[in-house]
């Protein structure tokens, strides 16, 4: 019999404590980010998909088409081609394609690059219903940015 009353008193106490905490929190300010109205600021080290870095002097990408990023990538999501224009010593990037459907944002490509040619972008709100939208032409992206 005493257990019965203990349960009733204990249950009532638990209920009141819980309701008390909820009631107090009800009047506290909102802690969640109100997304469409409030846009999050990405941290400096945020890993978005990669993008090419432009050389400040020449206006062309820093990339020298060595292919280290392509070899370092665990999932094989980078394809790049380059050609040597007549009269120039260095190769010039002609195509840099990122298959973002396979990318796991590990950053192996950026770590393998010795020429500061790629960096993480700050894009986070990517959404599409078509797979083709995630095959990024980074050279085109760089041209559009400038």
């Amino acid at each position, binding site marked *: 019999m005493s257990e019965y009353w203990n*349960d009733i008193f*204990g*249950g009532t*106490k*638990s209920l009141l*404590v*819980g309701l008390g*905490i*909820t009631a107090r*929190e009800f009047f506290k300010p909102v*802690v969640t980010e109100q997304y469409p109205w409030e846009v999050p600021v990405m*941290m400096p*080290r*945020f*890993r978005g998909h990669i993008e090419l870095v432009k050389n400040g002097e020449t206006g062309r990408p820093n990339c020298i088409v060595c292919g280290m990023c392509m070899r*370092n*990538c*665990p999932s094989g999501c980078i394809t790049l081609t380059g050609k040597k224009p007549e009269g120039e010593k260095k190769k010039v990037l002609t195509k840099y394609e990122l298959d973002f459907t396979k990318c*796991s*944002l*590990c*950053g*192996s490509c950026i770590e*393998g690059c010795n020429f500061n040619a790629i960096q*993480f972008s700050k894009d986070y709100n990517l959404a599409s219903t078509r797979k083709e939208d995630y095959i990024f032409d980074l050279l085109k992206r760089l041209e559009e940015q400038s």
Partner: protein
Amino acid sequence: MTAPIICREDEVFVLNLGPQHPATHGVLRVKLTMDGEYVVKAEPVLGYIHRMHEKMAEDRTFAQFMPNTARMDYLHALAYNHGYVLAVERAAGIEVPERAEYIRVITVELNRLTSHLLWWSAFLLDLGGFSPLLYAFDDREQILDLLERVTGSRLTYCYFRFGGVYNDIDDDFITGTRNFIKRLRSRLPRFYHDLVTKNIILIKRLKDIGFVSKEQCRKYGATGPLLRGSGVQFDVRKNEPYSVYPEFDFDIPVYEEGDSMARYMVRMDEIEQSMRIIEQALDKLPDGPVRAKVPKILKPAAGDYYAAVEAARGSFGCRLVCNGGKSPYRLKLRSPTFSNLSLFGEVAEGMLLADALAFMGSLDLVIPEIDR
């Protein structure tokens, strides 16, 4: 505790729990043979999210496998990073700078906190309590912000490197972590213990339910809070110390009861112990480099190497067999949840369905880690 089952064979029925079920938190299927509301036989069926991680390791270099480790246990990714880099460092004989070891410990323990907070909220959600989830996620979000500041990602971290960590932590991170610990300490008694631990409904749902004995743990190789909740004091951080764990003063919470409540209490006490480790590590944090010079392509000497770490769910082991090449000859990953789930069938026999689900929640299952 377990009700005697007197059933006629033609009166039992099979109930599929999963593969898509809110209480299994992933694609786990449990084939339950039921007699009314009592479980007669429970048989976990695995393999719905098998991704061949071990095989994948064999056709890529040691460094290229790093991102995979975070995708196994997505809740305690940094411990998996740690286990793998420890095994490779042992194989290649790489010395890690002291500051890097401290940063590893701080980030792994922060990650353990996020894992326990998420377990806590999801477990209570299984039991039917919704609001604790909101309080725990508020705290968890603070840690995710801190970890995002240093690692760049919020869940599947790939922060550790052979011979150190990817990049250094800054003063903002250190002060942020100290403030967070202060905040969690002040919130623990009210939001976690007053609201939930002392709640009579929770106690009635967990006490004396899902008893796991020491012998069962030994038989199935269970580790982590499950083993410590059954009265065995085993923690890889203390029993086979790695990294700089011997330098810290912390306790291993052990409860003798072996029921769901004991496992709950072990995890709640571990939150406190993790905070103690982080505080001490921040106090002792030395200066210096965070990454040793390591060749880009590793070719460890042929041999057999093993490293184990204490992840949030138990001991995670990495057995690495090298043949002197650029990629592992074989990588065997020992994941704790696989062993912990194995005893579910034996323990759940004779339980009420609702109790079996509460017991499953107290095991803290992460399905991608079971299947790998």
